[in-house]
């Protein structure tokens, strides 16, 4: 995180935590159980940077995005927007919404089907105080920014007349029209056709490079994170288990969970991608004590079942939440070799 010292982050999260209490039915009494959806996550979103959060269903990545957008109230932790601490306990203000915008996964469900596209774009503008005479121009400008040209052709259409890729672009345009500094994209491509996914990824990358937006890109597809992100964070059961700048995380994964994620991506060019000896158990399981990944981990040691590991630095700007990387002699077992390292390949871009 050396860059953090030089640039101030647009939006930072410090120790963001969200616990949910569920009732477990018992024979005579109901007991309570705490689900730690997000636990002590800190991250910084810089302008002109794409930060990717990768994890499978249930890893807490969507709850994290909703906390950053202040739709979900954190149990503890703080948010810092442009250097100022945000009162996370109180209601989200219009100001905050104008700075931080969320794009959801399913464009068919997130755009009102009974109104024309014009309505979806003009409503946020009016709410955020644009003049009635300007809204049409501003809405058209937002559509051009997401390459829906010519905008007039799209303004008066209904959502069902557009394809999934076009609708997701409208959804991004809607987020952009209030001129936010931070864009949170929660699985923006997973509902879309393969052929239009790259278009959306390139659009996000372009917004980040040309307009210096800070983007949080949430996905379960680690290959797309590698394609777009400046920093990648892997989450498991609410915790950050590995993070790195550039592509180091995918090229030299150090956490067994990251290795599992990578080996799960269909990759016809790599015949070793299905090596069973390297792969962790795929069934989702979380330990209450010790490392949360221990029940699935092929390298689990005694220490893993007792204590939660701290973050160990394994390279420049690359940390791993795993005892395998501890320097203490008793834990210094042979480290799981990164599976996909290839000779002569740059580790960062």
């Amino acid at each position, binding site marked *: 995180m050396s860059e953090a010292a030089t640039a101030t982050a647009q939006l930072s999260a410090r120790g963001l935590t969200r616990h949910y209490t569920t009732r477990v039915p018992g024979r005579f009494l109901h007991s309570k159980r705490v689900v730690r959806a997000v636990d002590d996550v800190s991250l910084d979103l810089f302008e002109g940077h794409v930060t990717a959060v990768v994890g499978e269903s249930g890893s807490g990545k969507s709850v994290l995005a909703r906390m950053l957008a202040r739709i979900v109230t954190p149990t503890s932790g703080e948010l810092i927007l442009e250097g100022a601490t945000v009162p996370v306990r109180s209601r989200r203000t219009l100001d905050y919404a104008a700075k931080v915008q969320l794009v959801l996964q399913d464009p068919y469900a997130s755009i009102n089907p009974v109104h024309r596209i014009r309505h979806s774009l003009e409503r946020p503008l009016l709410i955020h105080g644009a003049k009635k005479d300007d809204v049409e121009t501003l809405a058209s400008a937002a559509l051009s920014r997401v390459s829906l040209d010519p905008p007039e052709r799209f303004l008066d259409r209904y959502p069902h007349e557009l394809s999934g890729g076009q609708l997701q672009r409208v959804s991004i345009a809607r987020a952009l029209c209030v001129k936010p500094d931070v864009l949170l994209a929660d699985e923006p491509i997973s509902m879309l056709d393969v052929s239009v996914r790259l278009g959306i990824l390139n659009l996000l990358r372009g917004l980040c490079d040309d307009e210096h937006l800070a983007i949080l890109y949430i996905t379960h597809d680690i290959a797309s994170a590698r*394609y777009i992100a400046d920093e990648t964070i892997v989450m498991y059961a609410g915790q950050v288990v590995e993070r790195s700048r550039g592509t180091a995380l995918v090229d030299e994964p150090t956490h067994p969970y990251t290795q599992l994620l990578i080996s799960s991506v269909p990759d*016809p060019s790599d015949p070793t991608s299905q090596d069973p000896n390297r792969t962790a158990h795929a069934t989702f399981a979380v330990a209450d004590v010790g490392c949360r990944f221990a029940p699935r981990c092929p390298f689990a040691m005694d220490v893993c079942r007792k204590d939660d590991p701290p973050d160990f630095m394994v390279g420049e700007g690359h940390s791993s939440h795993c005892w395998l990387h501890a320097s203490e002699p008793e834990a210094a077992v042979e480290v799981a070799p990164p599976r996909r390292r290839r000779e002569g*390949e740059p580790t960062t871009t």
Partner: protein
Amino acid sequence: MSADTFDIQAVSPPNARHAVHGLREDDVAAGVGGNEFVLEVNDFSVDYGVGANMVRAVNDVSLNLRRSKVLGVAGESGSGKSTLVYAMTRLLRAPGVISGGNVTLTFADREDEKAFTTLNLVTATEKELRKIRWTHVSVVLQSALSALDPVLRVGREFDEVLKTHRPDMTKAQRRQRAAELLTMVGLDDDRLSRFPHEISGGQRQRIMIALALALNPDLVIMDEPTTALDVVTQREIIGELSDLRSRFGFAMIFITHDLSLLVELADEIVVMYAGEIVEHAGAGELYEAPRHPYTLGLLNSFPPLHGPRRELTGIPGSPPDLSDLPAGCNFYPRCPFKMSRCEHEAPTLTAIDGSDRSVACWLHSPDSPVPVPVELSRTAHPTRDPVTSSEERP
């Protein structure tokens, strides 16, 4: 369970049914040979609606599926891949209409493994279809949550299938068979007493697979079974499927938009675009040496896991509108290699000289005015060395 009571005629001698429905001579010959193909589809077309508003969702599709093989069907939404299989199995509802072609299913007799029976699914009656559904052809749908009845415990689903199709089984036997099937897909049999909402998405999909295999079918159709799941669960289910297939030897049609997944799983792949097959080839060949510009675009739409980061373009434009298709090649508006001929004349699926693969693209016709672009003329390595081949890619 005896097949002939339902007017399903034995393969040999060749029967009049073939002649009536216009099956070609060589197809009949293959049928007489017995059991090479489990499914043969000829000139199959499906429309939605009739009259002026009619939209052709599947246009003139022909394909064969060999016994115990996996056929992958790839394409984006609206390419007709789901319509094709629903129509093939006669599960398609109005306004979907089968407007032409034949689908012939060849299946082994339950009592005598050597005897094979054929049935034209397009003309079969409901009574005949009821006999082959689940017993010989079963379907796994994309959304297991909506396919399982939310108010029934999982055990009931198994119970009902076995009760209907195996009336001679006792309750205890049915229960035991259900537990056996769950163990087969790697689940605990305590799942039988659960409701669908109590079970995770991956486990629900495994239950769907177990249900589909309950009666040892000859053909299992998977309609995007892993699209709603995340990559780790997907990997596990795919592994499970390959394993089950090698144990039980059923043939499989696997529909997905994820071409790289198909390359790992399938023996043969057909790529569909706007209701037509644009390329048909072996899985390895298709991956290493695509011939159709659309296949190439699809393959280039997946960000790679290794190698230097560079910008990919994917396929420009948006998927076609079936009610307003271009006059010539359907892919013309999005094609990077388009020629003047493509604008007016639609190419047909033609075999490429000296191979068993076929492609619908004018670039590969002998009288093409331009040489085949280098991206579309790579050769597939007979001995696959995936590492080098991935580096050769431009």
